[in-house]
């Protein structure tokens, strides 16, 4: 291995690591706020990339029907609740918000041909289609059992994951897709050729991480999320709704996931079930941070990316073994150094 190969491998590792870092942050965020170990995080990656790909192929993405179907389910639940509580005036708003908006979106997609739109508009459309899945999944699957134990929430996560993968196969088919690159520029650095898209992934990830930092530090919603993460009961006493915090964290997780998918789909082929493995590697990163620390989780995810890249050079057959074995010494080290805090209430 000479220096050039080492540099190329490092570049590859950092690119993948940047995506894992984004997912690790989303996982930490969701876990801190809602105690949900969000296994379906990776599915947003696949759904984001494949929705964009089917928009570009001129097909109506199946995600649209999923958003619509979940909107109808939520409407049914909310209307039943409103009737029960005799809040009849809320009903039109509920119907309009949960059924009307998806219908409007469907009408828009039918009216224009998405394949002819410029790329940034397509990206926005894909995000508009995928991101609502986050809060909707929260409303349907997690909000009714918000007080359940971590184990129950984990089991629900597995169920949501399996359901979404099945729907992904149904919507997008078994074969993968790629989307065209955002930029075809490439740069020479020494002997190595640096692809513009690779650089874009890293830059976008850093920008997104900085934006998240400011969201948590400077905005009232970000502070509310942090407060909920620190102490759920205390935050509720201060008037912060746990439901709102949960919904917000799921929206952010979906946004981060879908955006990561759109970022990497020009570099690699994405399949309906690719999300799981990508999410799992983000999870290893999040574990390094103890599912609590954002900077350590991000650093851990970059480490996973680098480890993966170098091990695929030295021993490609054992790559996954090496990456996932990393979790054992990390867990050992964490359980020996951290004081165990019981927070099961």
């Amino acid at each position: 291995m000479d220096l050039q190969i080492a540099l190329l491998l490092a570049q590859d590792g950092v690119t993948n690591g940047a995506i894992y870092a984004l997912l690790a942050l989303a996982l930490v965020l969701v876990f801190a706020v809602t105690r949900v170990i969000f296994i379906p995080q990776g599915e947003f990656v696949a759904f984001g990339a494949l929705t964009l790909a089917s928009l570009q192929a001129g097909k109506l993405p199946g995600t649209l029907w999923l958003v619509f179907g979940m909107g109808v389910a939520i409407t049914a639940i909310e209307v039943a609740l409103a009737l029960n509580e005799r809040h009849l005036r809320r009903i039109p708003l509920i119907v309009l918000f949960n059924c009307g908006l998806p219908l409007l979106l469907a009408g828009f997609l039918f009216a224009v041909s998405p394949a002819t739109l410029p790329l940034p508009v397509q990206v926005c459309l894909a995000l508009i289609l995928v991101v609502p899945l986050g809060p909707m999944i929260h409303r349907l699957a997690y909000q009714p059992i918000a007080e359940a134990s971590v184990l129950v929430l984990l089991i629900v996560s597995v169920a949501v994951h399996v359901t979404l993968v099945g729907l992904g196969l149904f919507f997008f088919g078994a074969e993968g897709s790629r989307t065209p690159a955002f930029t075809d520029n490439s740069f020479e650095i020494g002997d190595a050729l640096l692809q513009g898209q690779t650089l874009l992934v890293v830059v976008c990830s850093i920008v997104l991480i900085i934006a998240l930092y400011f969201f948590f530090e400077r905005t009232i919603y970000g502070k509310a999320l942090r407060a909920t993460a620190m102490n759920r009961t205390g935050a509720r006493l201060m008037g912060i709704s746990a439901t709102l915090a949960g919904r917000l964290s799921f929206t952010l997780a979906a946004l981060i996931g879908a955006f990561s998918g759109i970022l990497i789909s020009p570099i690699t082929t994405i399949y309906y079930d690719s999300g799981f493995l990508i999410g799992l590697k983000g999870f290893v990163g999040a574990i390094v941070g103890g599912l609590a620390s954002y900077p350590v989780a991000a650093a851990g995810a970059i480490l996973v990316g680098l480890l993966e890249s170098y091990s695929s050079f030295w021993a490609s057959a054992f790559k996954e073994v090496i990456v996932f074995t990393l979790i054992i010494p990390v867990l050992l080290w964490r359980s020996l150094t951290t004081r165990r805090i019981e927070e099961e209430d």
Partner: protein
Amino acid sequence: MKIQAVLAGWCALTAIAGASAVYAEVNIGVSLSATGPAASLGIPEKNTFALLPTIIDGQKVNYIVLDDASDTTTAVKNTKKLIAENKVDVIVGSTITPNSLAMIDIAAEAETPMISMAAGARIIEPMDVKRAWVFKTPQNDAQMATAIVEHMTNNNVNTVAYIGFADAYGEGWWNEFSKIAEVRKIKVIANERFNRADTSVTGQILKILSAKPDAVLIGGSGTPAALPQKSLKEKGYKGTIYQTHGVANADFLRVCGKDCEGTLLPAGPVLVAAQLPDSNPIKKVALEYVSKYEAAHGKGSVSTFGAHAWDAGKLLSNAISQVLKKGLQPGTAEFRKALRAALEGTQNLIGAHGVFNLSAQDHLGFDQRARVMVKIEGGDWKLVK
């Protein structure tokens, strides 16, 4: 109590009546991988069963299609269910080699013939008491690997690097290819693995490039096999790239795009059916399948994997009509035994993938006509003459 007893009796009666009605028809049990990692192979197979004849020699034929989710345990469970509950006369399946291997024991124990749609030669070799009940329709990996090695020796390729799936498919190809290449004096100088869902193969590709091979063979199936090829081109590799017949579907061309120009692969003749010379007997059968499939699922939707299911249907309708002529009743052990013998005795049956000439020792029965070399040119498959 009385009502319950009457109900139970009534249920039992209808069950018997229902069962005897079913017995008069031929039941074909199918277990394939329509979901999970092998879905891109299993879905066209599943679509093909809807196109197979439902009446053979005036006898109604039922196809009971189950999905095994590319999972070995489910494949075994499906087989048991088909035999015990549906009383099938023959089993078709599964899509992939590990599942098919696991199904052999159950089919043989129930003395039910089984036709696999998976490539692995181990499904029918070495021939023994159990495998006497087992047949298969896809070409053996060895047959396809020989075609690649032949093409390599004819084109002065001396050193080859291999990169394949880290699963049974990639391992199987590595075993066959490295064996045949050694005999033909081709040096294999790198052996790498990658996963179906990998987002990057940069490490493996850099290692292959540093070995400077004349050609690279990619042992993968479907669109995932495009990733190493795209990485090789991106890093400026100029040599020849070979793929396996696992990539022979339209999605591969769509995902790989211009990076696949000039790629060579062995495939069943159905892939380039229209380009076959008119003298080739396979052309007519293959074109019939292609037109039937595309009429149902749209132009360009056909893949070679579905054709394996079509060939299984061909074998079956030929054998079933022979057995029916003997006046045997479907659903009986005698029927299954005769069906097995009829399958084994198949001679000169033309399928979409080749000509079947089965024997007691060879339960596939393909010859050289069952494979052609294909080149990707202008985003389409071109027959290499």
